[in-house]
């Protein structure tokens, strides 16, 4: 039991150290703008279609469920407010972050892990450069930038999807629906959603890069690292979501 706690504390310590090293590299030259752009393209543009689909479907399903649920109590009029608020505050950040953790986090750890077992990470060091600067910083910055933007897009698509069902199933006029959405959503909701996602992005990329560097046991290790990242980041996202939500409520509500 004590040894397990010790191992977990050690992992947390090493991830924190990686975070500080990344911060130091971000604030000193050289900064690899080209690599950052590559990562943004791969992460952001590569996840665009799946984000749109997931956001849209979430909006469809939530409106359907809330619509019929509230209809029994004559509360259909509240659907736009409830759907848009829950999408912006929770559904879009969580779904998009979990999606990115699965799609990008596992890919990052597998890529760095494969580089580690084929001595490419050692080669970066042997050539007088820092693996943190070359590999970690572009990935962390790209994830922190891209994830909030993807989440905003996902939320937007969710609201559009919600409207389609609100109109098709409950004959709700577009003007009423969007007016309710716009009067319900506050700046704090959008800001809170983006801030949460920036944090989730930081955690996904840090954990993925950390585990990539720890990969040792050849191709088997690469697969294990990818699984480790998906499981751990999902847990971290869900747990930290509770505390961040509480914090945001205390700050803005």
């Amino acid at each position, binding site marked *: 039991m004590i040894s397990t706690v010790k191992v977990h504390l050690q992992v947390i310590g090493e991830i924190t150290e990686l975070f500080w090293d990344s911060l130091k590299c971000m604030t000193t030259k050289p900064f690899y703008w080209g690599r950052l752009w590559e990562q943004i393209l791969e992460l952001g543009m590569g996840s665009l279609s799946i984000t749109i689909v997931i956001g849209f479907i979430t909006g469809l399903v939530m409106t359907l469920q809330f619509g019929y649920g509230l209809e029994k109590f004559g509360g259909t009029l509240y659907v736009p407010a409830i759907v848009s608020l829950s999408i912006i505050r929770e559904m879009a950040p969580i779904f998009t972050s979990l999606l990115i953790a699965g799609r990008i986090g596992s890919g990052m750890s597998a890529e760095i892990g494969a*580089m580690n077992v*084929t*001595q*490419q990470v*050692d*080669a970066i*060091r*042997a*050539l*007088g*450069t*820092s693996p943190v600067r070359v590999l970690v910083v572009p990935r962390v910055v790209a994830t922190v930038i891209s994830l909030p933007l993807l989440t905003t897009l996902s939320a937007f698509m969710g609201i559009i999807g919600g409207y389609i069902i609100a109109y098709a199933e409950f004959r709700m006029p577009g003007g009423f629906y969007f007016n309710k959405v716009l009067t319900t959503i506050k700046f704090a909701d959008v800001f809170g959603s983006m801030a949460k996602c920036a944090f989730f992005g930081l955690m996904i990329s840090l954990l993925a890069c950390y585990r990539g560097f720890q990969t040792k046991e050849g191709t088997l290790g690469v697969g294990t690292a990818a699984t480790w990242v998906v499981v751990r980041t999902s847990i971290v996202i869900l747990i930290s979501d509770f505390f961040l939500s509480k914090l945001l409520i205390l700050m803005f509500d």
Partner: protein
Amino acid sequence: MEKILELKHVAKTFDHRVVHKDVSFHLHRGEILGLLGNSGTGKSVILRSIIGLEVIDSGEILYHGNRIDQLPEKKLFSVRKSISYAFQSGALFDSISVFENVAYPFFEHTKLKEPEIEKKVMEILRIVKMEEAWDKMPSEISGGMQKRVGLARSMALEPEILLYDEPTAGLDPVNVEMVLDVMRVAKARGSSGIFVTHDIPAASKICDRFIIIKDGRVAFEGTWQNMEDSTDPFIQSFLTGSEKV
């Protein structure tokens, strides 16, 4: 002769396995030192320790008389521009081309303009006879070719010391000769070297001096002639490959 690199009483243990008990030797300017020994005696670990990829448990590693074994990673970056490592597998970056791999040190450590870098990269690729594969990805070339590109990348900045980690392992005789030619060119360009190998005939052609590692210590140090003349049963069995080794 000037000692440019010196190891004093270096010890290294992995978990509970003692690899080096007390390893001491030095490298003179302009020479290629053959580092021999059976598999598992930690020859590659010595090279990795020299450039700080492994941390030694005790002892000292001196470069031009200054200790480098205790330097933090950031300060080691400048040492690694002067002491370069040619990995056994080549360790090429597989997401970029042969040209970009060799150009990497120039982009990182020089302020040369792109046309100048291009000229220098092609010149080095010609030395390793890989100029026609400049646009290939590492996965598109053979293992021997990858080793040569790895050598090209490590000699790009004309380092003072080149650490060769089994560059001839698994190569056919023609490729071995090509690698030895590259090492000769590197030496002519001013790079001293430490050549870790099991390839005794290749080592005998290129090395000025030899050391043999046994049981975590230096068991022999001398020239090829000293080695051949040695009456030590271990040295003789090592050279002939008999079972006593």
